[in-house]
C-alpha cells in the first residue's frame, strides 16, 4: 500500500519533472511530441482542478443553509448567481452571440458578472486613498525615499500634475515624464531585478526539491 500511496506518486513527480526539464535541451521530434502530449493533458487536469474549488464552495455554503447558520439566507444567492450564469449558457451552448443577437449568457456576462467583478476591484480605489492618508508615514529615511518616488509617479501620471511640475520645476529643463522614465528604467529596474533574481533562484531550488521528493508537504500526511 505504501508503494501506491507514497512511492508511486513521488516517482511520478520525478519522472514528469525530469522529462519536462530534459525536453528543454532535447530538440528531437520525440521530445517535442512528448511535450505536446503533456501540454494537452495538463490543460485537462488543470480544468478538473477547478472542480475542487467549486465543490468546496458548494459544500461550505450548502452546509450553512442546512445548519441554518447565521446569515444562511445569503448563501442561497451563491447558488442563484451560479445558475444565472450556467443556465443561459446551457441554453445557448456557451455562445454569447448568435446571429448578431446577444444571448442570455451575453446579457448575464455584461450586466451581472461584469458589474460585480469590476466594482469589487474599483472599491480598492477608496482604500488606497485612505491608506495614503492614514498609513503613508514618513517615519524613516527609507520611507522618505518610497514617498518621493510615489509622489513623483502619482503627480506625473496626469496632465494637471505635469502642468504643476512645469510651473514649479520647469526651469530645470527636465520634464516630469523624463524623470519618471528615469526612475522606472534605472533605480526601479535595479530594485526589481534584485528581487526577481532572488525569487527565481528560490523557485529553482524549490522546484528541484519538488522533483526529487524532498519537498512533499503538498501531498499531506498519511
Amino acid at each position, binding site marked *: 500500500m505504501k508503494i501506491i500511496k507514497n512511492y508511486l506518486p513521488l516517482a511520478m513527480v520525478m519522472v514528469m519533472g525530469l522529462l519536462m526539464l530534459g525536453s528543454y535541451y*532535447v530538440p528531437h521530434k*520525440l521530445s*517535442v511530441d512528448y511535450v505536446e502530449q503533456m501540454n494537452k493533458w495538463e490543460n485537462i487536469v488543470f480544468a478538473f482542478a477547478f472542480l475542487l*474549488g467549486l465543490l468546496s464552495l458548494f459544500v461550505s455554503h450548502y452546509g450553512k443553509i442546512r445548519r441554518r447558520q447565521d446569515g444562511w439566507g445569503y448563501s442561497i444567492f451563491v447558488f442563484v448567481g451560479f445558475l444565472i450564469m450556467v443556465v443561459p449558457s446551457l441554453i445557448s451552448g456557451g455562445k454569447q452571440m448568435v446571429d448578431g443577437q446577444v444571448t442570455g449568457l451575453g446579457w448575464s456576462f455584461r450586466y451581472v458578472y461584469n458589474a460585480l467583478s469590476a466594482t469589487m476591484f474599483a472599491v480598492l480605489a477608496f*482604500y488606497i486613498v485612505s*491608506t495614503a492618508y492614514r498609513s503613508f508615514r514618513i517615519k524613516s529615511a527609507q520611507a522618505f525615499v518610497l514617498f518621493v518616488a510615489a509622489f513623483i509617479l502619482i503627480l506625473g501620471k496626469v496632465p494637471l500634475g505635469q502642468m504643476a511640475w512645469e510651473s514649479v520645476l520647469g526651469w530645470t529643463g527636465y520634464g516630469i515624464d523624463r524623470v519618471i522614465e528615469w526612475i522606472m528604467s534605472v533605480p526601479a529596474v535595479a530594485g526589481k531585478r534584485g528581487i526577481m533574481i*532572488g525569487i527565481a533562484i528560490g523557485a529553482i531550488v524549490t522546484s528541484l526539491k519538488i522533483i526529487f521528493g524532498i519537498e512533499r508537504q503538498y501531498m499531506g500526511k498519511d
Partner: protein
Amino acid sequence: MAKTKTLAVLIAFFLAAGAASAAPKAGKTAPVPAIAGFTAADMPYDAGNALLLRWPDGQYAADTVYRVFLSTAEAGGWVQADEFKAADRSAKAIPLPFWAWEPLPGELAVKLEIGALVGELKSGSDVKVKVAAFEKDKLIAESLAVTAQIRGNWFRLDRLNNLILLTVVVIAFFWAVSHAKRKGLFIRRIAGLDAIDEAIGRSTEMGKPIYYVPGIGQMSTISTIASTFILGEVAKKVASYDSQIKVPHYDPVVMTVAKEVVKQSYLEAGRPDSYREDLNFFVSHDQFSYAASVDGMISREKPAAIFFMGYFMAESLLLAEVGSTTGAIQIAGTDVEHQLPFFFTACDYTLIGEELYAAGAYLSKEPMLVSALKVQDLGKLVVMVSVAIGGLLVAVGAKLQWDNLVQVIMTLFKAY
C-alpha cells in the same frame, strides 16, 4: 585555412560549371553560370524540419536577389522556399552561439524551414535544394541541386550555457542536501521575525487571538509552501505561550496541509490538548469575499497580532488597511513584488520576497531548509560576481575595442 578554402571553392566551381550544362533546367533556356560552393546540410540542434544552406558571398552585385527552391521525393517538382537579398542573410546572423556555430567570413548562410512548405517530413528524408541568383528578375546564376538529409537532433548545443549552469546548481543542491546534517549553519537576522515573540507575548497579555492569514495561493505556489513552514513555527510558539491562533483559508488543499502542520506544532510544544480542529477554517475560494470576510473578523475581534504570509494579490491592501486600524502588530511577507508597497506602508514589519522563503529556515533551523538556503546564496553570489566581473571586462573590452572579448562574454549569458 584561407588557401584550402579558396581551393575548395575553385574545385566546386569547376565541378559546378561542368554539371550546370547537364542540368535539365539550365538546358532549356540560355545556360546560366553556376553559383559556386553551395552546400546544404541538416540544420543542427533542431527537431528535424530545417536545412542549413551555405555558400560564399560576393560572387555577384550587392543588390542580387537570391531565391531558394526545394523538392522532396513525396511532392516532386521545385517549390520556391525563400527569397532575400544577399545583404539580409550573412552567416553571422544565424542565431547560434560561438561554441555551436563558426561563421566563415564573407559567407551567406540560410536556415530554411521546410515544414510549412512541404509538410512534416520523417527524420532521414532526403530533400533537394538549389539556389538561384536574380538581378532585376533576370536569372543570372543558379547552383547545382544538392541533396541533404534532415534529421532530428538529440541535443541543443546552443543551450549548453544553460545546461552547465543547471548542472552547477544541481550539484550544489545535492551537495548541500547530502551535507544537511551538519549543525550550526549561519543565517543572518531577519528583522520581521524577531518581532514574532513580541507579537505572541502581547497577545498572551491581552488575551486576544493571533490571526495568521496564508493568502490566496495554492499548495503549488512557492510562497504558500514557505508560509506553511512559518505557520508551523508560529503555531509552536503560540502553543507554548498558551495563546490562541486562527488561520482563515482560501484553498481547501492548503487548509488540509495547514491543519496537519498546526496539529504537529501543538504536539511538539507539548500541548496536544489545546489543539482544536477549528483553528484552521475555510472562508471562501474567492479573492474578494475572502478578503471581506477576513476583514470582518479582524474588525470584530481586534486581534493582538496579524500575520500575512504567503501569496497575496489586490486583497493585500484591503487586509492590511483594516488590520492597521485595529492597532494590531502586523507582520507581512510575500513574494508578489507589486503588493509589497502596501504591506510596507501599512504593516509594522515586512518580509520582502526571498526573505519569506528564508523565514522558514531561520525559524526552524531545520538542516534541510538551511542548506537549501545556502544554495540560493550561492546562486546570488554567481550573479553578483558575474555582473561585477562581466561588466568590468565588457566595459574595458568596449573601450579598447576588443570586440571578440565583448562578444564572447555577452554570448555566455545569452539565452537561446
